């Protein structure tokens, strides 16, 4: 019984190891994509819609623009 439990635990551990993915240095461009961001990712449009309706206004939540483009 105990051996079966240990074996099962080992199998689960090995399977979870197989789920790990190493991002190679040359693949890190994928992490730079907008959909990979934590704060400005897929949840962002929903967040902004709720924010805008609560504040009764829209815009003003992005980066400053215009001019020299250095902001």
């Amino acid at each position: 019984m105990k051996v079966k439990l240990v074996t099962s635990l080992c199998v689960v551990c090995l399977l979870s190891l197989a789920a790990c993915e190493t991002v190679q240095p040359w693949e890190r461009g994928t992490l730079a994509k907008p959909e990979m961001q934590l704060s400005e990712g897929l949840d962002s449009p929903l967040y902004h819609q709720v924010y805008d309706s609560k504040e009764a206004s829209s815009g003003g939540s992005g980066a400053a623009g215009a001019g020299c483009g250095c902001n």
Partner: protein
Amino acid sequence: MRTIVVLIMLLTSALSHAAAEGDTAPPFTLPNLDKSATYSLATGKVIYLDFWASWCAPCRVSFPEVIALQNDLGSDRFEVIAVTVDENPAAARRFLRHYDVPYQILSDPDGVVAEQYALPGMPTSFVIDQEGSVSLRHSGFKSGDMTSIRRRIHQLLETAL
């Protein structure tokens, strides 16, 4: 248990294989960005092989210095080969609009050659001597790094005289 340990050791040894200094540079053939021509790594010249990407911030520091390197040393006995690992060639072209590049830009969107050279970071460059051996591997780039790279290239060019 012993089998598991051996398997883990085999896996880690396969992962740690990199193009180290003194090794023969892995041969490759890659197309240029427009896919109008291909380039194969050849011997006879000192080669500065530079892996870069449009999303890599230090590459913006290295690019002007690598361009100056090629312009200073000419192309008779020295050649810069730049390999972009950008998945999207359009992103690489947008990056290149800012520079007047006098050398070849090759495209490795699937990272096949990057994997062969086991790049430890971005950017990574290799100085390859006239016989095709890796003389120097340089990972990352910050202002001032070109001094030691230039020194090594000059050493190789002088020994061939």
